[in-house]
């Protein structure tokens, strides 16, 4: 195991025995996932396995009934979503993270406001400019309402907005959903590059297991709310039995 710096230790997301119930249905049943800084940790599994519920419980949109969510050792379980966001957990929800009535610029400014609250206002303009550099289509459409964006542009917008919030941990829910393979490859490449450069922690939920494992370091497989396998991404991708049983490729 490599040693972590202090800054990196603050970014470790340690989910322990997380249980979430929707009425009588147990959607998560004692799930433990460790996501480390500088790594992409993939959470895989079929529809209904509990992947989205896991992210929604971590970010506080859903209240878990048991377990801990430790960010750098501090337990966030049960805190309101806005508090968890301010602690540095940026959740990019599936498909509908863009506020379509606001302009591209205003969407980004919301992320920047959170980033400024967390890190101070110094360099805020540079940070916004760097997102436009990263995603040139957004720069061309900065004054348009986000409703006019394509699916790929929306994904760029929510990822850019999450980055402006200066997160320790990035939770990505199905970033490939509904996107053309070329766009998916580009966005996954970007995520990998970000993790390598900024050493943040990324928890990536995907149904598209093959492409998720291609950029992930570690993987956890969920089935019916439980972790049924966890290993290095390469090992999971090489396990033919697991692939057939749970991952569908």
């Amino acid at each position, binding site marked *: 195991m490599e040693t972590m710096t202090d800054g990196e230790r603050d970014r470790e997301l340690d989910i322990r025995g997380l249980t979430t119930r929707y009425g009588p249905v147990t959607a998560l049943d004692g799930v433990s996932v460790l996501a480390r800084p500088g790594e992409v940790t993939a959470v895989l599994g079929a529809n209904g396995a509990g992947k989205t519920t896991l992210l929604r419980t971590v970010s506080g949109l859903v209240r878990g009934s048991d377990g801990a969510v430790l960010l750098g050792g501090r337990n966030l379980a049960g805190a309101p979503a806005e508090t968890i966001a301010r602690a540095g957990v940026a959740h990019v929800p599936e498909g509908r*993270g863009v506020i379509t*009535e*606001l302009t591209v610029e205003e969407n980004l400014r*919301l992320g920047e406001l959170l980033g400024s609250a967390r890190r101070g206002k110094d360099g805020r303009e540079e940070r916004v400019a760097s997102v436009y550099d990263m995603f040139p289509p957004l720069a061309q459409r900065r004054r348009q309402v986000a409703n006019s964006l394509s699916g790929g542009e929306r994904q760029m917008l929510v990822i850019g907005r999450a980055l402006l919030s200066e997160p320790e941990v990035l939770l990505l829910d199905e970033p490939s959903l509904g996107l053309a393979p070329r766009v998916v490859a580009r966005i996954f490449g970007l995520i990998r590059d970000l993790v390598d450069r900024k050493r943040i922690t990324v928890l990536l939920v995907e149904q598209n297991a093959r492409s998720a494992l291609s950029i992930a370091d570690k993987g956890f497989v969920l089935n019916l709310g439980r972790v049924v396998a966890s290993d290095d991404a390469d090992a999971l991708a090489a396990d033919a039995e697991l692939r057939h049983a749970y991952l569908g490729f």
Partner: protein
Amino acid sequence: MQQFLNITLGGLSQGAIYAAFALALVLIWRATRIINFAQGAMAMFTTYLALAVIESGQSYWAGFAVALAGGLVLGAIVERVIMRRVEGGPELNAVIVTLGLFVGLQALAAIIFGAAFQSFPAPFGLRGFTFGELTVAFTPFSVFIVGSVLVVMLALVALFRFTDLGLRMRASAFSQEVSRLLGVRVGRMLTIGWALAAVVGSLAGLLIAGGNLVHPAYMDAVIVYGFVAAVLGGLDSPAGAVAGGLIIGLALSYVSGYLGSELVTLAALAILVAVLLIRPKGLFSRVAERRV
């Protein structure tokens, strides 16, 4: 010609008040999808506060300030203490609660301030301006009405367009979940939204009351006209609320002037039905019609 001019001017100043009231309704509707039927009663209550201040020997402006500040506090309390419990639940629950609040505040005002008619002062003259021989139905107080509504509108536009708080409030109104994920304290934004709406509503209450008689039910008609104005404007659009208010003010003024004042309420109902039949999204709704 002179009659037409007078009716138009009267309609404009009346319409400015309806615009302010409709704006208050729209502010809350946008943020919470609740029609605040207690808006009028809240405004009535703060107007009585102003009257109490004025009758204790303070100036009109002291009463004016107390009413607006009272609206701010009352709006915040109503949201935080009462509406918070029904927000996110079935919409009918929230509607019933605002109706209950409406009845309760009216009864409370009758208990505290009495149910009798009382006259409310105006800060400016109520005699029409004269141009040579011609005296028009536009008074210094009318100028104040139109001016103060204009100032409030511009202040709201500036707040929502140019400030961080305004951006957070708009984000909360459009998507509470995404806003929370971006660290926006949505509950606080709702409280501020109700408080601001109540201030705008209080302004409408003061402007209606100026130079008139107040009693616990004096805002009842304004609730109806303000609601029609808000629906006409599309409920979602602050600019639509203002335009709707002016249109309703003018339309009702023409009905009253040319057809008879007893038909005003009926005309408001006819306009409401016509809007709902012909353009249920309102005249200024941003929802574009589908092009084939």
